[in-house]
């Protein structure tokens, strides 16, 4: 009885974790991971350039628009 209860509790926890992971994946990544990856890379490069003394505030908006364009080209409709 205890084993079946533990199994059930484990299944419920696992389902909850999967649903939680799926929610955050959809929230952050969505249907095209390349845009989120491009934004993350752009922010990292912006920070590196900033620490090197280069003004790089313009980089993330530029990369965001370019990544969106590339994503739109991959979608036919």
């Amino acid at each position, binding site marked *: 009885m205890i084993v079946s209860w533990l199994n059930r509790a484990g299944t419920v926890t696992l389902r909850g974790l999967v649903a939680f992971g799926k929610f955050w994946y959809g929230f952050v990544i969505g249907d095209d991971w390349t845009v989120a990856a491009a934004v993350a890379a752009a922010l990292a490069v912006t920070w590196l350039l900033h620490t090197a003394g280069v003004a790089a505030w313009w980089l993330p908006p530029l990369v965001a628009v370019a990544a*969106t364009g590339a994503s739109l080209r991959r979608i036919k409709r």
Partner: protein
Amino acid sequence: MINPAVFTTTFLAAAVEIIEMVIIVVGVGAIRGWRSTLLGTGAGLVVVAALILALGMALTRAPIDGLRLVAGSLLFVFGLQWFRKGIRRVAANGLRGMGARNARDDDIPAHGVDWIAFLLAFRGVVLEGLEVAIIVATFGAAARAFSSAALAAAAALVIIGGAGALARRLVERIPRSALQLLVGILLSAFGSFWAVEGLGIAWPGADLFVIVLAAWYVLAAAWYIRRRRQTRHASQLAPQHAR
């Protein structure tokens, strides 16, 4: 006794942050529905109030840059999802919109809490609310007129929040496809602004640069919509020429 200089300065500084907060809440509410958005807003206000009560003047030492970076980056990537969807829909349907709210289309749950709406509103309110609290603590402490600063922030919240509530019906009249694009543009503009600020980088012109960012995303959207329409038009004409 109200200190007029502290009241005016705090009111204007807090108003800038509260306008950003209200834009996010009204935009998200109009797209995803009001129940979960207002739940997120309420929860955000409770968290900010609890932090103010718990930390008091220590709020001025809160790691606001880290919060800006995390909240801004998440808002940025999520805003770009709506930006892309909005471009596709406006290119396909024009500004006619998509008619009534389609729950399945946007993954909005019919029952229970819509966590996307909740989190977007919650994050916007907590981030902006904390910034307002820091403004009040800083201006109030600097001039030893804390009550004037707190009163000014409360007045800004009531006035701008009231304007947002009045604007709600107007915003809901905007066709859904265009509204999704508009909110995607605003979330991307605020998200990129906060994420870069969170890295410790100052924008030229400070808060006013959000307008330049929004204009940049509007121009990009217009360009992509035009290109998608031209491509579709050309592909529709191609079979006719082939005959």
